[in-house]
């Protein structure tokens, strides 16, 4: 029986950004077994990652289960904390990977399913495609935001403790017996929010490591949306004008009918 729900923190939402995505390479590639199995042309890795400057994802995510295509042996791959939540495989076809996220027990929440479509072939504009082919790296990522609505008090505590940022910090010992001092030495201040600018992530270059997720990108997206909103406004105005014209015509016709 589930324990009685502990008290919940009212009117609060804790947001955590994380990245669900995949990388794909054309084989042969150093990360993947050589020679590749018969018929497999691409090697790929599907992952669930935290933001490179964000708090530790294992605070709230304890286990991830990747459900691959049924033609794979052991189609259900489960990765537990702390290991990087990724699955490396080779293949030739794109399919939807069902990802099941198991939350920390103190949250008292059930597991949730997200779907990610595995992209293996180059996509996007011609420039982007060319770059992907050149680097032999296709990355398809999405920033997901999980919102914990009215979390339990225990969960809230873990989510707001400073320890979450320890994985980014470097231990600087102060001698024996004393608690090590954690000092952050990276470029960007750790925060649950998006970084101000794109930066090279902890584990590598730009795109694949999630460093591209920044406020700069957010501004880009916002600007695009603002433009769309403006053109939508125009369309609405247009419709309204036409409607006015129609109303006048209706009135005229009404008069004409009455006169008849």
């Amino acid at each position, binding site marked *: 029986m589930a324990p009685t729900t502990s008290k919940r923190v009212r009117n*609060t939402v804790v947001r955590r950004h994380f990245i669900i995505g995949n990388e794909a390479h054309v084989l042969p590639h150093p990360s993947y077994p050589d020679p590749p199995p018969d018929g497999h042309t691409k090697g790929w890795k599907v992952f669930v990652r935290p933001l490179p400057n964000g708090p530790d994802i294992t605070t709230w995510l304890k286990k991830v289960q990747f459900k691959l295509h049924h033609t794979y042996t052991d189609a259900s791959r489960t990765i537990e904390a702390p290991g990087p939540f990724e699955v490396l495989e080779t293949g030739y076809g794109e399919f939807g990977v069902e990802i099941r996220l198991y939350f920390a027990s103190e949250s008292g*929440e059930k597991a949730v399913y997200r779907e990610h479509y595995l992209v293996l072939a180059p996509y996007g504009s011609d420039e982007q495609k060319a770059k992907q082919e050149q680097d032999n790296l296709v990355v398809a990522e999405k*920033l997901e935001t999980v919102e914990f609505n009215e979390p339990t008090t225990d969960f809230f505590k873990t989510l707001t403790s400073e320890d979450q940022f320890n994985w980014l910090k470097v231990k600087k010992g102060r001698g024996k017996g004393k608690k090590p001092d954690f000092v952050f030495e990276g470029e960007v201040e750790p925060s649950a929010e998006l970084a101000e600018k794109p930066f090279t992530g902890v584990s590598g270059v730009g795109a694949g490591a999630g460093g591209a997720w920044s406020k700069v990108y957010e501004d880009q997206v*916002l600007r695009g*949306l603002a433009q769309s909103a403006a053109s939508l406004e125009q*369309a*609405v105005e247009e419709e309204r004008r*036409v409607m006015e014209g129609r109303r006048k015509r209706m009135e005229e016709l009404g008069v004409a009918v009455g006169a008849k």
Partner: protein
Amino acid sequence: MATGSDIRAALASDFTPTVDPLRAAPTPTAARATPNQPRTRQPRLHKKPALRNRGRAAHWTYDTSTPPTRRDRLQVRQWRRAAPSADSTDVEPPASKFAKYDVKAEAPSYDDETYAQHLNHPDWTKEETDLLFAAYEECNGKWPVVVDHYETSTHRSMEELKSRLYSISATLLNLQTPMTAMTASEYSTYEVLKSFDPLKEASRKKLAEGHLRRPRNEVDEETVLLSELQRIMLHQQTLDSEREDLRRRLQHPVADQNGYQYSTSQALTTLWQQLLAADRAKKTQRLRPLEISGSRPSQSAASIADATSATPQTAQAVDMSKQDLLRFGVVQAQEKLPTGISFASDKLSKPRVAKSSLQTDKIAATLAHIGVPELIPLPTPAVVEQFERIMAKMQTLLDLRKVAEKEEQELRVRSAELGV
């Protein structure tokens, strides 16, 4: 099926068929089964009474006579019953039973003077008019016959003949007894005569003919259209109100009340509750109970701005510095929160799907048209808010377009009506 007697007859040829009390009459098969034997008739079970003369036979005569209604002295031989009892009611020859249907049509007559004075008409010569009147009298006023009878060089339709005769009758009636002196019935006759419109009559007859010769599918189509029309008429009320609603939404609403009664925060909250309750009653909710910023009533903005900031926030169970809140991604939310876990990217994808696939397609097309990408990989709160605003506007646009279609249709129908 072989009956018992058949079998007996077949087995024993000299077996004489006896009367079977269960069967009244001899069956033909039984008779035929014995071809060598003579047919013997079965006696009747019941007795018919012998014929009797019930009464005196009526006396009929076979004579020639002329039907009274004919003019051409035709001799017709008919069997006619002589008076069965001499004192009965008048015996009329059968032919004259129909004499009552010999209705003479009364057409007014005129002389040359009156004609020259009042009845002249550019299309009609005097000979034609006289011929028309003669034909009318002869054919007893039956117009189909009159049309056939009336033969001149110019072919005239029934409506033309009718209109000519009626107009002449009207004028003559008017001459006889001026309008002021006419009795009610005379006046009504006059009116009817005057109001004969040949064109309308012709079109009416064509319409009736068309109705007669309608093919099956047209009849079905017409019933469908009629039912749809009925539905439209029934819902006219609701459609109009919806349209008005839409127009009001687009326009800046005009304040009809003094806004100062809502300057206290308490009054404002009550106002907000009222609006929320009213909105809940509507079919599609436009107000979101979450953010107070979306509830701006149409009164003086200044007083409202003060009041909303004064509205007390719900008690915070958490005491953290603002910076810490940001660092840990804690957000103090306003009113309704969904329970459990939710994903922000859903807010970017779920509004795009509508109840019917047609609507979904329309939404997708509109979004593509204004340049919103299909996949927005960054669901931060700012992006989500912007997107929600766009979706709300788009709903309005789609509603506008729907109403536009309906109105266009109506306009087309009405202008077509007028054009006819």
